[in-house]
């Protein structure tokens, strides 16, 4: 494999997958394999989270479009769609932050009980990964506003894989945290 940046990122997200699997297992274990009832799920708004999920998925789509523009050396299109991906990612994070604020106002906190702990740890670590991804995309954008250099094309492959990974992880988090309590 020639593109070692992409290879590194594929291996790293493979590793990160195990991290998130462990956190998800924690949540599912407490909910389904102990006698406790989930105290967080009843306060979650799946429709609202679903809408923000669409923003995150859309950001993956716009990133793919910007990659296509990059391959055609359409740098203007590349910049616009990269910026759009960043904005969509920020919208998702804003949604998460406002959701946290709402839950804290209802006294649902990290230290309330084991479900509060699991919910905030799992979604918090995911949000942290989204923020890191936004920073990486911002770096690419700033670099490409100058004359796009080779290094950022190589870096783009890795960041793109990472961004899609964050997206896919969210789908699993969304399913296990928001959807399964409704089923």
């Amino acid at each position, binding site marked *: *494999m*020639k593109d*070692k940046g992409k*290879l*590194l990122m594929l*291996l*790293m997200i*493979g*590793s*990160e*997958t*195990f*991290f998130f699997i*462990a*956190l998800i297992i*924690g949540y599912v*274990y*407490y909910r389904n394999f*102990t006698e*406790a009832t989930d105290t967080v799920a009843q306060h979650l708004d799946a429709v609202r989270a679903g809408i923000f999920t669409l923003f995150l998925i859309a950001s993956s789509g716009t990133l793919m479009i910007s990659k296509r523009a990059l391959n055609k050396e359409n740098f203007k299109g590349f910049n616009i769609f990269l910026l759009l991906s960043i904005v969509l990612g920020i919208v998702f994070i804003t949604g998460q932050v406002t959701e946290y604020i709402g839950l804290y106002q209802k006294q649902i906190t*990290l*230290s309330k*009980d*084991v479900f*509060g*702990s*699991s919910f905030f*740890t799992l979604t918090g*670590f995911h949000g942290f990964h989204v923020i890191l991804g936004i920073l990486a995309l911002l770096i690419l954008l700033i670099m490409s506003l100058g004359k796009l250099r080779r290094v950022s094309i190589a870096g783009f492959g890795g960041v793109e894989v990472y961004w899609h990974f964050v997206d896919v992880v969210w789908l699993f988090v969304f399913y296990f945290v928001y959807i399964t309590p409704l089923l």
Partner: protein
Amino acid sequence: MSLFINIQEGEDQLPEVTSDKGRLLWISSVDHKQLGIMYLWLALFFFIIGGLEAMLIRAQLAVGDNDLISPEFYNQLFTMHGTTMIFLVLMPALIGLATYLIPLMIGANEMAFPRLNAFSFWMTCLGGFLMYFSFFAGGAPDAGWFNYAPLSESNYSSTQGVDYYLVGLILTGMGSIGAGLNFVTTILTLRSPDIKLNMLPLFAWMIFINGFLILAAFPLLNAGLFMMLIDRQFDAHFFIPSSGGSAILWQHFFWSFGHPEVYILALPAFGIISEVIPVFSRNKIFGYKFVAASTVAIALLAFGVWVHHMFAVGMTNTVNGFFAASSMLIGIPTGVKVINWIGTLYKGSIRMTVSMMFAVAFLIDFTIGGLSGASFAIVPIDWQLTDTYYVVAHIHYVFLGGTAFGIFAGIYYWFPKISGRFLSEKLGKWHLWLFVIGFNFTFLVQHVLGILGMPRRIYTYPSRFGSWEIFNMISTLGAVMMFVAIAVFLWNLFITLKKPRTAPKNPWEAWTLEWATNSPPDLKNFEEVPRVHSRRPLWDLANPDNPDKRLN
């Protein structure tokens, strides 16, 4: 001093540390050889500290009703001893050897990601020193190296020690993941074009598989560590049963990392042994493909055996039976390897260097460790012996008699390559015999102590238990022998490093590519990589009329 330093390249030697500039060139280095050497020094530093902790433990246990050390300090000692030896000695030593040797073995001039390589080293270093800072911050971690909840939670362990343990291990864990990423990408992308995967030296093969093990196992540990840190710092409830959490979940997280970790530490040692034994018995490795393939089998099975650490938890018989079977199954590929090494020795022209003798000691003592491990796979025996000194004996036969002997074999073998000087064989033999005899004195009797029922982690025992006292005294005397052996080893290192560099390129007449470079290699490893057509490129070059079968 000017602001910019001329980075040395090409024909230059590694910088000396005797000047400011030289020291700065080491600290800021991204060269795999320098980082590998720094890993090895880091491991040696913590090996001395961890060894002194072990000596204090043995001094306390030498006689019954001893009050040399307080119970609180004893808890900190055995916790730090275990954590240090596993995460700050064996891991950095193996990763260091791999960082140094992998690019040389595959005909590359660098790792795939040199800066990631430096990042990995400094994370490991930072994590280690942070963990030791706990001694100055109110007390070291004291809940054992596997840090079982709820003992490790803030209501039972009120000092900051466990927090330092958690943060320290998260940092070293990230360092290890970085190293794992780097090994896999380096081996996949930077091999000399001649070298196909089935022509890699076995050490490189083991490190390659090991990279995947690291990538899959450490995130599980990190997730658990983060959850416990959030428990302790932000009052979460993950592992606190009294408020709805699950202490067993911590055990699952820890051991689903912990058992692969055993193989993360064992596989590179297998790799070292697979290099040392063929070279010193002048034979090709017996069954290259079996050694490589059984490693893959071990790596896959390693993730399906962790519950054998938890038989005493009281899970159902079905669960226990499944994991008992899988634990016995994993003995098979490991046994295959032992047969391979013995097969390599058979009809060889054996040269008994110190390196080779350590490899033979590895074969014997690691096999004992493997057998005592297999006995734990049998659930009733595990119930009887769990948390006794039998476990202590077993873990030391695997990690000290196995991995550490492998590392010593590797150090004596590659020392001429790394430093350009030969370690004294005479002092080396003192080191070897004192260490191996002391090791077996210390830990063989601990099997008996365990069967007699002595629990691990007690700070003292009644002196009226006469047999306990005798066996513990034997164990302590053995530890003193090992202490002397390490002193000899350090003296050997000290006087050797003062000698001039005399080692030729290939002093052992070995066959892998690292021996085609100068001793020590220049900053740029290879001006020109020799053509490789088989698993023993230097044999082919030395014997053009009798080359190995071409593989490419």
